[in-house]
């Protein structure tokens, strides 16, 4: 088990190194950073001096090593556009994105699993067919369209919920500003969270349904019924648990993509998160922010994957190989 964790951590570090290489190459290939930093009037001598001061004349590997060294300490340089440390910028925006992702992830998981189980158990019911049809729409409509539709219905026509922004926020600790503790903050997160989570929800629902139908056909479910166990025990104790391994995998990866692809939702709802920051940075070729964002997303994916792998062990005893080997 410990060996497994260590092996996975080493693999994760390798992945991060590759991503770092990609991020770093942004600096070299997306235009000349000097020209975005200095004004039109700067002389060639000024530019050369700045270039030397920033270490841009050093060999590639030296620069890359310096980039990694700084990145490990959380230093991604200064934003070209805002002239603030990149890490500070991202950290100030991160809580908004994480809250949005968390809420929509929870919506997606809870609704996805329960609807998936429901449609699998009532395969021929009209409500199941209805849910399946609606879920097709959820899979096929692009996120921005769903966002705009929701704004139109619930913000413009019905005027129930705000259409943009985060509402009122309060400080929670030193750097975490939360919208979840205020009424307006909670109301503001509903539409973007649904927009962001809808696709994941339909995906999880269809996956749970398919896995559930598969498991319900197995011999051990038949045998569980033949033993006279109650429907509840058969469906939720025996069947649902067996569907969880693939569902955990997909949900984990989807949580990563919820954070990564919050960009569109954040743009539609003007949500002040890292996604919106990233879009602005792309417009202004703010390479340090882009590079840091890339690294951050990769880190989140890697961590989630690690957690997913560990969850397999919790759910499926057959994977706990060391114990089985010791026994035989």
């Amino acid at each position, binding site marked *: 088990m410990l060996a497994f964790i260590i092996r996975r951590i080493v693999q994760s570090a390798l992945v991060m190194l590759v991503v770092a290489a990609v991020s770093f190459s942004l600096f070299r290939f997306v235009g000349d950073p000097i020209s975005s930093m200095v004004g039109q009037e700067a002389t060639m001598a000024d530019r050369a001096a700045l270039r030397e001061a920033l270490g841009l004349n050093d060999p590639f590997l030296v620069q890359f090593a310096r980039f990694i060294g700084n990145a490990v300490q959380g230093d991604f340089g200064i934003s070209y556009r805002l002239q603030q440390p990149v890490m500070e910028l991202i950290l100030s925006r991160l809580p908004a994105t994480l809250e949005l992702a968390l809420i929509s992830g929870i919506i997606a998981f809870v609704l996805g699993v329960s609807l998936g189980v429901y449609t699998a158990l009532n395969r021929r019911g009209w409500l199941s067919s209805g849910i399946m049809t609606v879920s097709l729409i959820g899979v096929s409509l692009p996120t921005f369209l769903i966002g705009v539709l929701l704004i139109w219905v619930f913000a413009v026509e019905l005027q129930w919920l705000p259409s943009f922004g985060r509402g009122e926020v309060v400080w929670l600790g030193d750097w975490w500003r939360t919208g979840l503790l205020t009424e307006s903050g909670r109301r503001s997160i509903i539409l973007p969270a649904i927009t962001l989570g809808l696709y994941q929800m339909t995906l999880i629902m269809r996956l749970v349904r398919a896995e559930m139908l598969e498991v319900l056909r197995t*011999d*051990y479910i038949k045998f569980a019924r*033949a033993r*006279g*166990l109650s429907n509840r025990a058969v469906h939720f104790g025996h069947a649902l648990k*067996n569907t969880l391994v693939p569902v955990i995998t997909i949900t984990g990866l989807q949580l990563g993509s919820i954070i990564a692809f919050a960009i569109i939702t954040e743009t539609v709802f003007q949500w002040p998160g890292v996604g919106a920051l990233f879009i602005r940075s792309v417009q202004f070729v703010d390479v340090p922010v882009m590079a840091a964002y890339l690294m951050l997303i990769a880190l989140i994916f890697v961590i989630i994957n690690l957690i997913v792998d560990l969850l397999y062990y919790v759910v499926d005893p057959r994977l706990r190989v060391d114990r089985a080997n010791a*026994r035989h």
Partner: protein
Amino acid sequence: MAEPLLSVRDLIVEFPTRRGTLRAIDRVSFDLKEGEVLGMVGESGAGKSITGAAIIGLIEPPGRIAGGEIWLRGERIDNLPMEKLRRIRGKRIGMVFQDPLTSLNPLYTVADQLIETIRTHLPISEKEARQRAVALLDRVGIPAAARRIDDYPHHFSGGMRQRVVIALALCAEPELVIADEPTTALDVSVQAQIIDVLKEICAERGAAVMLITHDMGVIAETADRVAVLYAGRLAEIGPVRDVIKQAEHPYTAGLMGSIPTLTQTSDRLVQIPGSMPRLNAIPQGCAFNPRCTRVFNRCRVERPDPIDRGDGRQVACWLHDPAEVRNG
């Protein structure tokens, strides 16, 4: 005569399909006395397993019991509501399935599954249930039961798993055990052991056994009576010794002739020409008539019902109709 433990009367099981309704079981009747072992033989698709599933109320939809009655100790059970039927399953009728590798839920320990089943049917504490489970495992021949009970199914070999399955089927002291090809998936070397365990433990508890198999050898050694099914119909039923010594139905005779014996020295085993008809193409009259060597006109027109010969045997064959016998 005492009331039979199980009485199946004119059972009909149908499967609606796109191309008409298939009759998998067509008017099958038989009784099972207390503590008796009834062997049920026939080719694949003859309806052996479906008969077992019908008794325990677990026919896969869209299949359904379309006619007939099933009585358990004077109580009609084929039309019970789901919840009442569930209380009979495992408690009064235990079931053993064919493949022990897939009958147990891989995610729960043997103890979990045993205790869950015991406590579903008997009002005893977790601790008592556990003691009972250990005693049962010990009885079915699992060494070091107290220690191994907390293992997962994948820690056990196939034969051991089938012992666990038998323990599960018997843990609430059922009056009847339906064993659906309990040894087919096992190594030849452990088949005899499993049959012995099943037979002993049922005899000990006075449970009747309905042993479904296509292995005539197992039937000959284990069963008190044997029922022969052909194309969803009962061909012959009677005491094992008599049927083996002198089969009355030409199909049974063919079956017996196809078993190799040590004393006989014929070069080739007898083979029944042709194969069992598909359910959508059962011929008029006797289902066996196209393959029968002793067929005559009446067999092609009129379907023979089982004829009670008075010596505990019933044969569904016109050759044994008193009228035909008289005519010569």
